[in-house]
């Protein structure tokens, strides 16, 4: 989707910085602790709040900077208790938050090639 957001708004990253099967985390707003996970799966970019639904309020999921995937690279993982999530639907498939899902963050890629949060 081509962005309708002004190019002056906070850009998360360059779209081409996220390769197929890769996931990285970026501050949701400049300087924020809360991060948005941007990943590419099946050629499409997906955005997810870096917030495991196991605990109310959510907790950060990486074990180290940008290390969001399980060892095989097949699922997003919460490295608190090993929960795994479908990269495209956000559904928890195993772990403490079984039956819950990640919170999707809608993304837009601008004409400048930058990924931003979609304007509602």
């Amino acid at each position: 989707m081509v962005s309708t957001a002004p190019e002056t708004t906070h850009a998360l990253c360059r779209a081409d910085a996220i390769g197929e099967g890769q996931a990285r985390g970026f501050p949701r707003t400049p300087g924020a602790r809360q991060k948005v996970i941007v990943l590419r799966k099946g050629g499409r970019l997906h955005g997810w709040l870096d917030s495991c639904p196991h605990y109310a309020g959510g907790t950060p999921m990486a074990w180290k900077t940008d290390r969001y995937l399980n060892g095989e690279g097949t699922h997003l993982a919460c490295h608190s208790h090993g929960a795994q999530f479908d990269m495209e639907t956000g559904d928890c498939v195993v772990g403490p938050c079984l039956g819950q899902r990640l919170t999707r963050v809608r993304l837009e890629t601008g004409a400048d090639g930058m990924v931003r949060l979609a304007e509602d």
Partner: protein
Amino acid sequence: MNIIGPDYLVFGVDDLASSAEYLTDFGLTPVDVDATGGLFEALDGTGIIIRAKSDPSLPDPLPTATMLRQQVYGVVAPEDIDAIAAELGKDRRVTRLADGSIETTDVHGFALKFQVTRRRPLSMPAEKINAPGAPAQRAPNELGVFPGKPAQPRTLSHHVLFVPDQDAARDFYCDRLGFVVTDVLKPAGPFLRPRANDDHHTLFFITTPEYMKGLEHLAFHMGGPTELMLAGTRLVNKGYQSFWGPGRHKFGSNWFWYFNSPLGTHFEYDADMDKHDDSWVAREAMLTPKASQVFLFEAQRRWMPGPDPKGIVEDEGTPEW
């Protein structure tokens, strides 16, 4: 049954390289580690063993997300292993290995092993502090902090299991293996210490649904709160994800700092835990944030007030300490 506590926790992981990187940066020392994994030990020889999750030498996995595959308990003497084998052999399969250790499972199906402990006696001072009114613990000109100050895990302290039935878990460990309940956080579960260890707890249970059964966290004792915060700060500076802390718990009085890990569980640094004997009467409290901790802090990027009009001078580059 003189059980001392966990000698090793054994994991079947989906990423050996990342796990090895993590354990090393956490401060554990690789011992006989090769492409199939191995032991990463604390200063006393206790530690974490990792193997590939498909490694046939591992006990079967639980049908949950946990990567924990076996809890290896150290006991004082061979007679303790005989006593445990006799007791647990009444109602479950107990396998004797060539080295005299035994393998079995607990009431929830967690794989257990009991061995004459491999831990090495530690002889090193606690973190030393100076306080008015008390004899100085550090000699004149002996510094409290200095570049390269060691902050390595000393020993495997405790671990916490998610269990569906806390009463069954308590009864198994207390009635069959001689553990003692030191305190209870309701409705989560009890803190337990084994007979041959005076630490407030080496084991704690949190009641969860069956599909969560597994390892909530494990912890290593540090030499004191400064070591704990120094080791945690070094992890943060390398990009590791803090989960909870630093802070200080109420039950056990131990300082804590928890981190995410690629082993599907939290790793905790702890320090300065209470000691107990059999005269101790277990307390009960409802599990609330207030009951859980005296205080809680969160690491932030280092700054200082100064001559800069912004009032902040941020660190640049890799911290040297």
